[in-house]
């Protein structure tokens, strides 16, 4: 369970403070695929960065399985991320000088856990990249790189996967391949996924629940079937 209580984020923009997220109270139940949608600058990436502890909120507390992560030290946060949270980025961020296989191994090497090699092989097979295991990121397509990034995340055996625009740089077919993988691990392993998405079609096709953000405020929250056209207009501020 992820709980947010009064969480806000304000940064200094020139001489003026700029509020990216207004105080939020929210709870994400375990095992769901939650889509975060909203126009550019609505606070999606900031929200995901806060949930991962990669950024600190200005106010409020974020509880993951009852632990307030805003009170943790950098070492405590690193431990929490290693044990519970996996993060998938829009631009994959694989280490360019390591092969796909070596990139997938990194979390296990960091945590010092054994059985790394067979698990890395199994995960590359699950994301359909067995044949590409010894290729470098520059030799892989965008979709393949993102699947390696997902395998790297799954290597941590996380309870929560946070994905910031994981398919924004991919074409529609590859987007579905990547989201199919995320959806499958969510269902099979009971992982909670919080994923920011940029198309309504993908949001409606994959998520169990939708959070709609507009200028740092939640303007829609509910099960995906309730995401009506009016709700979409409210999120994207369309009045035509």
């Amino acid at each position, binding site marked *: 369970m992820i709980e947010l209580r009064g969480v806000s984020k304000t940064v200094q923009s020139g001489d003026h403070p700029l509020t990216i997220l207004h105080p939020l109270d929210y709870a994400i139940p375990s095992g769901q695929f939650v889509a975060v949608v909203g126009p550019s600058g609505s606070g999606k990436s900031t929200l995901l960065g806060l949930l*991962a502890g*990669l950024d600190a909120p200005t106010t409020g507390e974020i509880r993951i399985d009852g632990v307030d992560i805003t009170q943790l030290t*950098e*070492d405590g946060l*690193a*431990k*929490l*991320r*290693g*044990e519970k*949270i*996996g*993060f998938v*980025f829009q*631009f*994959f*961020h*694989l*280490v*360019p*000088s*390591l092969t796909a296989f070596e990139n997938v191994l*990194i*979390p296990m*090497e*960091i*945590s010092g856990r054994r059985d790394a090699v067979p698990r890395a092989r199994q995960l590359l097979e699950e994301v359909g990249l067995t044949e590409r295991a010894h290729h470098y990121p520059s030799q892989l397509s965008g979709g393949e790189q993102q699947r390696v*990034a997902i395998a*790297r*995340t799954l290597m*941590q055996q996380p309870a929560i996967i946070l994905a910031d625009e994981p398919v924004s740089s991919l074409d529609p077919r590859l987007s579905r391949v990547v989201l199919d993988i995320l959806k499958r691990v969510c269902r099979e392993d009971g992982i909670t996924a919080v994923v920011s998405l940029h198309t309504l079609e993908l949001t409606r096709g994959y998520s169990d629940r939708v959070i709609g953000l507009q200028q740092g405020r939640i303007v829609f929250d509910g099960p995906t079937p309730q995401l009506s056209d009016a709700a979409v207009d409210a999120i994207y501020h369309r009045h035509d």
Partner: protein
Amino acid sequence: MPEPTHQPNLPDILLEAPTPPRRSRSFYASLLLAVLVLGWSIHGAKIRPGELLDGIPQIFLTLGRMFPPDFSKITESKNYFLPDTLSWRDLLVPLPLADEQARTRQRWWDNTFPQTVIGATLETVQMALAGTFLALLVAFPVGFLAARNTTPHRFVYYGVRTFLNLVRTIPDLALGLLFVAAVGLGAFAGTLALAVHTATVLGKLLSESVENIDEGVVEAIRATGAGYTQILSFAVLPQILPDLISFTLYRLETNIRAASVLGLIGAGGIGYLMNTSFRTFQYQEAAAIVLVLIALVMLVDYLSSRLRARVV
């Protein structure tokens, strides 16, 4: 195919494009200043083409004195000052010898061999390799301390940067003189000079490489639960490794040339022999040494470019 017709009602983007800015008076003033500074420099550098033209025959005369190069210092065994009590086999094969012979052999390797062309050439290579390696040991941690994104504190960043900039301005010849005064004539002084100068250059280059890494990879590795040192090893190091290898090989090539020059001030290496040959007007002998040096530099350039192509 019909001719495209001009439609006068459409906006012409060329007409709408802003006119290029007019060059201001300050532009012409700067240009004039640059020309004046250049004229002043040419005057100060005493560039006199007439003297050069007059001196060209002298250049050919000196070059003529160098031909044919005299390789006897390399090819003739008398120039290796073989001890009477030892054969080539005794010297080259590391087998046990009687005490006196063993001492003679050691003295030959320590004192006589480095004075020969082959010995001095090898010493130059040793100085360059050892100096570059010592520099790398220092530059590697310094590179992280002097990079804005990995330094533990901004005071450390400014302190290390300032130190690197100050020491880097000291030419390696000056450092060589300093170390000759400290540890005496020989290869050790030259190696220290190369190590110090190279450490500051490599440290600066590495810090810039660290600052230019993809921060996204750092964020991704941080997100897998990595701490500070793990981020350095898994996210930063793999990204700077190609630069690290490339810069180190480049500095090794540079240090071969620098080690040759350091011989001029008695800091070991082949430069000392070359200087002696020139000063005693043994031009043909000097030409042979120059050719050996050229071959050495070309060999090291070739080997390092092969190595660089393989690992970078």
